[in-house]
């Protein structure tokens, strides 16, 4: 945090801002692939009577392995940001009034301004790259939804070993129900995230940014 890099060091000769460092991009795409595969194998586990692409046994094994990869990936993300000055991207805004005001400005932009060519209300910077809507969503997903999902998943992975925790949680059905509710949230999030990613200057701008790391120029 003390060695905070000046913004100009993130600007290359073409005046493009370097938003997404390599570890973040690797983490993001691994997470994206993992989320999609977990959703697909989860659907196969839950709906074997409707979907029969792979067997229940295989889908459970795949789901477990991918789950562990995503758990490790979450810890990599966590330690990366905890040891990086880029943690500022996730730090909450303590001025609630200001945050709510900016949140609604952003919502208004998405609901109207974006269609009439208004300027984006949030100025994207490497240490403040998320707009208020993004920040709240990612805080919720990364700090609440993902941990709850992997803790409940771990409990169901070895019911006997985690019997005490399951009992504390109120039983295996509660653990499973929580896991499935998180799964439902992820399904909605993936749709939403994929679509919001298309709201750059070009429909592919944000996707390209997540591969190159550099922000695409605005129109």
């Amino acid at each position, binding site marked *: 945090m003390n060695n905070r890099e000046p913004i100009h060091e993130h600007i290359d000769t073409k005046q493009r801002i370097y938003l997404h460092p390599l570890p973040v991009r690797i983490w993001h795409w691994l997470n994206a692939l993992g989320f999609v595969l977990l959703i697909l194998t989860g659907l196969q586990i839950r709906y*074997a009577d409707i979907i029969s692409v792979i067997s*229940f046994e295989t889908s459970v*094994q795949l789901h477990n392995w991918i789950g562990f990869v995503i758990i490790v990936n979450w810890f990599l993300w966590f330690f990366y940001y905890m040891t990086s000055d880029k943690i500022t991207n996730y730090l909450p805004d303590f001025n609630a009034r200001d945050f709510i005001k900016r949140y609604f400005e952003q919502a208004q932009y998405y609901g109207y301004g974006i269609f009439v060519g208004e300027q984006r209300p949030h100025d994207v910077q490497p240490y403040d790259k998320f707009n208020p809507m993004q920040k709240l969503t990612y805080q919720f997903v990364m700090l609440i939804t993902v941990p709850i999902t992997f803790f409940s998943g771990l409990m169901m992975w070895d019911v006997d070993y985690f019997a005490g925790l399951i009992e504390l949680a109120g*039983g295996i*059905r509660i653990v499973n129900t929580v896991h499935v509710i998180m*799964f439902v949230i992820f*399904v*909605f999030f993936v749709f*939403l995230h994929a679509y919001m990613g298309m709201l750059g200057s070009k429909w592919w701008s944000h996707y390209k940014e997540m591969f190159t790391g550099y922000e695409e120029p605005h129109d």
Partner: protein
Amino acid sequence: MTTEISRRIPALLAAAALFLAGAWIAVTPVEVLAQDAAEAPDPDARCVKCHSRGLKKKLEDGEVLSLKVDAEAFGTSVHSVIGCTGCHRDVAKGRHPSRQPIESRRSYSFEKNETCRQCHRAKYEAYDGSIHANLVRAGSDKAPLCSDCHSAHAIQRHETYDRDSGEPCSKCHTDIFTAYEESVHGTARREGNRIRADHFESPVCADCHSAHDISAVASTGYLVSTCMSCHEVAELAHEQWLPNAPMHMKSVGCSACHAPDAGLRVDLQLWDQVNQQAVGAEERYAPLRATLAEIGNEEGGISSLDLWKLIRLTKADGENIDVRLRGRLEVATGMDAHRLQDSGQATRTCENCHDGDSVAFDKVTVSITRADGRKERFEADKAVLSSVLSVDSISGFYAPGGTRIKLLDYLLVLAVLGGLAVPVVHVSLGKIIRRKMKVK
């Protein structure tokens, strides 16, 4: 002098008698002595003299009881050494009970249980805690008494039992023994009494159920450990391929998979979490029992809401019990439990249970333990397993896919529709706004 002689006459007579007796013994052949001893009055022979004939007694219930005793069978029985009066002591006292009224054959056998107990205390105590004795106490006229299994007079050592015929259990449990005979255990017994070259002798009734302290199988689940006592590597073998193997082995009965043709049901047993015991006949469970009987006899079986209310009842203020429902997938009948097949034929397809269309969850019962140790089952609507209320009422039983909660399915559909609707609505909104801008 005369007085002296007359005083010695008794002694002289005694001496003469002794001399004559000694002389008679000395000249009499040994065979003659033995023959006389055999003809001496034997108490058993005196009994047999009458009871080998067709004696009969009319009982109070109208039945005519044959009093004939097969002397040869009794003579070769283990009880021949104690003789008739060893058990029929009332006769030994010189009071032959022929004129005493006997209410029924059953009541007489029941009375004789006490006679058996006097010598066979340990065995009797084991029997006394068994399901058979519990049923007798509950008033059953079919549950076996000592003589029903061991016979009254032709009692043999257990080593001499014809175990292959299922004796004596198969006498009452005929259908179950027939199912057993067709099982991997029964077949192996017929074919050389071995399952594999290096394996144990194949079990018959008492090897799994024990001989006297026979428990109500369904209420204890002790048979899982009984299976394991021979199939020592079963747990390890299941862990090689079955996810959550210990949990499966706790909540799925062995025969549910190893009797692949058996019909299945989910039994939700009322379980006292505080006292760690099945909810039984104790007074503290009386309100629970009454409510269960009330909702259990409703048409269509117990509904999700009724089941939820039943469990909530135990969580009411002032109740010092925490009752849960312990779910277990098991075979639907005792006969099915005995139709065990070779492990190669056991169900290994996960979709048999982990599928929304699985028949494994079509039959659901809620059970409470009776005083005799057996379960009293009440049918429940199968929807109890997929209701959102089951999160609270059946918190400990869940099979992914098979017993999924329907409300969460609708939630998922909503999430997908919502996820698709956002882009559609947003793009449409954009078009409308741009069109309006152009108009202006």
